[in-house]
C-alpha cells in the first residue's frame, strides 16, 4: 500500500511488451490462452491503478480511509495554497512540488552514480572469459538475497557517527572527527546506489556481452583513439542497455522511501516517504497519498513515453 506509485509505474510497460505476439493458427485456443495474461494484467495492473486514481478523487476520512464523495480536494491540496486558514487568494503551493523536484534530483543523481560505477563493472564482467562471467554476476547479486529493509538499516549502522566506517577512519587517523554522513543527501545517495546498482549492471552487461568487439578494432584501424572509440562506437552500440539500466534505476529511486527515511533523516524528505506517510495511522490522508501517486506515475509515464519516442526516432533515422 505504502509504495502505491511503484507497482503502477512498473506495470505501465507491461501491455506494450506483450502486444507483438501473433497467433498463427489454432484461433479457438487464442482466447483461453490469453486469459491468464489478461487476469494478471487486470488484477495486478489495471485494478490497482484504477483504485489509486479513484481514491485520489474521494473525500478524506479522518483516522484513515475515505468516504465515497467525489472531490478534487487532494489535488487542490497538492497544487494550491490558500494560506493557513484557507481565506487567502489561491497561490501555487510549492511544498510538494519542491519535494517532487528534490526526489527527481536525488533519483537522477543516484542513477548517474549507478551508471558511473555500473558501466565499468558491467564492462569488466562481460569481457571476462565466458566461464567466469557467471561467477562475477553471482557475486553481484549475492547482497540482494537479503531484504532491502535489512540492507538499508545495516547501511545506516555502518555510516552513523559511531559506526564502523567512522571508527575505522578515526582509528587510522584519516579523519579527526566523524564524517557526519548519516542524515545527509550523500547517505541517501549511497543507499539508493547500493539498493539499485544491479538494475544498472545487468542490462548493460547484457548489451556489452552482445557487443561485437571487432567494431572497436575497426575503429582503431581507422585512426580512432580509445576515448573516441568509447564515445562514438561503444556507447551508441550498447545504448539500449544503458537506457534500460537508467530507467530501471531511476523509476524505483523516484518512489523509494526506505533509503530516504532511514538514511536521510527529516530534512531529506522524498516522494516515497510523503506517500508512505499518508497511509500511516490516524494522521494519514488516503486521497492525498493516492493523488501524489497518480502525479508521480503520470510523470514517470511521460518520461518513459518521451524516451520511447526518442528511441523510435533514433531507430528510424
Amino acid at each position: 500500500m505504502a509504495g502505491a506509485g511503484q507497482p503502477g509505474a512498473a506495470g505501465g510497460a507491461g501491455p506494450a511488451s506483450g502486444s507483438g505476439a501473433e497467433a498463427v493458427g489454432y484461433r479457438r485456443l487464442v482466447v483461453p490462452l490469453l486469459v491468464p495474461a489478461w487476469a494478471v494484467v487486470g488484477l495486478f495492473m489495471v485494478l490497482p491503478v484504477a483504485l489509486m486514481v479513484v481514491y485520489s478523487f474521494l473525500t478524506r476520512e479522518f483516522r484513515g480511509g475515505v468516504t465515497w464523495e467525489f472531490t478534487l480536494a487532494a489535488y487542490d491540496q497538492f497544487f494550491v495554497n490558500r494560506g493557513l486558514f484557507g481565506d487567502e487568494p489561491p497561490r501555487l503551493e510549492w511544498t510538494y512540488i519542491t519535494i517532487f523536484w528534490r526526489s527527481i534530483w536525488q533519483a537522477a543523481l543516484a542513477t548517474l552514480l549507478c551508471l558511473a560505477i555500473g558501466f565499468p563493472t558491467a564492462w569488466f564482467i562481460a569481457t571476462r572469459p565466458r566461464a567466469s562471467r557467471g561467477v562475477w554476476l553471482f557475486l553481484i547479486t549475492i547482497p540482494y538475497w537479503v531484504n532491502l529493509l535489512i540492507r538499508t538499516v545495516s547501511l545506516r549502522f555502518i555510516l552513523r557517527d559511531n559506526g564502523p566506517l567512522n571508527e575505522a577512519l578515526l582509528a587510522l587517523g584519516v579523519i579527526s572527527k566523524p564524517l557526519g554522513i548519516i542524515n545527509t543527501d550523500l547517505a541517501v545517495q549511497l543507499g539508493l546506489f547500493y539498493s539499485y546498482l544491479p538494475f544498472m549492471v545487468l542490462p548493460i552487461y547484457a548489451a556489452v556481452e552482445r557487443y561485437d568487439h571487432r567494431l572497436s578494432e575497426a575503429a582503431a584501424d581507422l585512426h580512432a583513439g580509445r576515448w573516441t572509440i568509447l564515445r562514438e562506437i561503444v556507447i551508441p552500440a550498447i545504448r539500449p542497455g544503458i537506457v534500460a539500466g537508467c530507467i530501471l534505476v531511476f523509476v524505483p529511486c523516484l518512489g523509494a522511501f526506505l533509503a530516504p527515511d532511514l538514511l536521510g533523516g527529516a530534512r531529506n524528505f522524498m516522494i516515497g516517504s510523503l506517500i508512505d506517510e499518508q497511509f500511516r495511522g490516524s494522521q494519514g490522508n488516503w486521497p492525498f497519498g493516492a493523488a501524489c501517486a497518480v502525479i508521480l506515475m503520470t510523470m514517470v509515464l511521460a518520461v518513459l513515453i518521451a524516451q520511447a519516442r526518442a528511441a523510435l526516432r533514433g531507430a528510424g533515422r
Partner: protein
Amino acid sequence: MTLDIADRAFFTLLGPSGCGKTTLLRLIAGFEDLTAGEIALFGQPIAGLPPDRRPVNTVFQNYALFPHMTVAQNVEFGLRMKGVPEPQRRARAVRMLEMVHLADLAGRLPAELSGGQQQRVALARALAPGPRVLLLDEPLSALDLKLRQAMRVELKAIQEETGITFVFVTHDQEEALSMSDSIAVMSAGRIQQVGTPREIYEAPVNRFVADFIGETNLVPAEVERVECGTARVVLPGGTALACPAAPGVGPGAHHVSIRPERVTLSPAGELAATVERVVYLGSDLQLMTRLADGAPFAVRLQNAARVAVPAPGAAVRLHLEEGAVRLLAD
C-alpha cells in the same frame, strides 16, 4: 620468417585456416603484439605503434561496419579521425563510394544493405583515409560464388587504379591465383614459397605447395643424378625422365609433382596405367587411373570433340608433356 612485400603490389597470403596468415595480418595492423622480430613499412619500423597510428587500413572478414552510422558516415569515419575538414572528407567519401558503385546508397544504414554492398562499403571505408597499405582479411569469403568472382575483378582493378599495396589474406587458391602479383603460401606459421601465381602453380618447391595449390599427382621418384640444372629421375615402374633440378635436391628418394592437365593419352606415352573411373566435369573429363605399382594417378582431359574416352578397365599409356614433371624439395 622474413617476408618482403613490394610497393604497389597485390600481395596475397595464402594458406589453410590456422596457418597463421590472419595473425600475420593482425601483426601488420597492430592488433597483435610482436613478441620478437620487426615489422617495417617503407623502411620505418612500426612494431611499437598502436593500430590507430599506423598508415594501414583493414577490410575485415565480417566487414565490421558501424551499425549506427550511415554508409557515408562509415566511409568518412577514418578521415574525420585524421582531422580532415568536412568539405574535403565529404567529397572524398563520395569519390570512394563512386569507385565501389554505391554513391546512391550513401544515406543507408549498413543493416539495409546486402552482403555484397556491405563488402563494398567496408572497402571504401578502408580506402578513404588513403592508407599506404590496405590489409584485406578474407574479404570475399562471406559472398556467394557469382559475387565473389565479380569482386575479384573489381578488387584487382581498384588496386591498379589506386596504386595502393594490397595485402590480401585468403584460403581460396583461385582467389589468390586470379588477383595476385605475388603470393606467399603459408603453412604452420611458416612461409613455404613466395612467387608469382605462375611460379607457385607451375613450379611448386615442396609437396605442401604442390598439393595445396590446385590438383596434382605426387609421385615418389628416385633422383639418379643432377647435372647442368637437370635432374634424371626414375618413376615407379622404371620410367626414367629428365626434369628441372630443384635447389638443394641431390640424388636419392624424392617426390615429383605432375599436374593432371599436363598429361595426355598417347600410345607412345612414358607411363602405363589402368583406367578405373571416368568422371564427367563438363568442360573437362577426369580419368582416375592406377599406375603399374598401384598408386592412384589423375588425368584431366579437355572435353573436346576428338577425345576418345577410354572405358574403365582399359590399359592406357600416359604422355607427360614438356615441363610437366616438377621435382620437389621434400
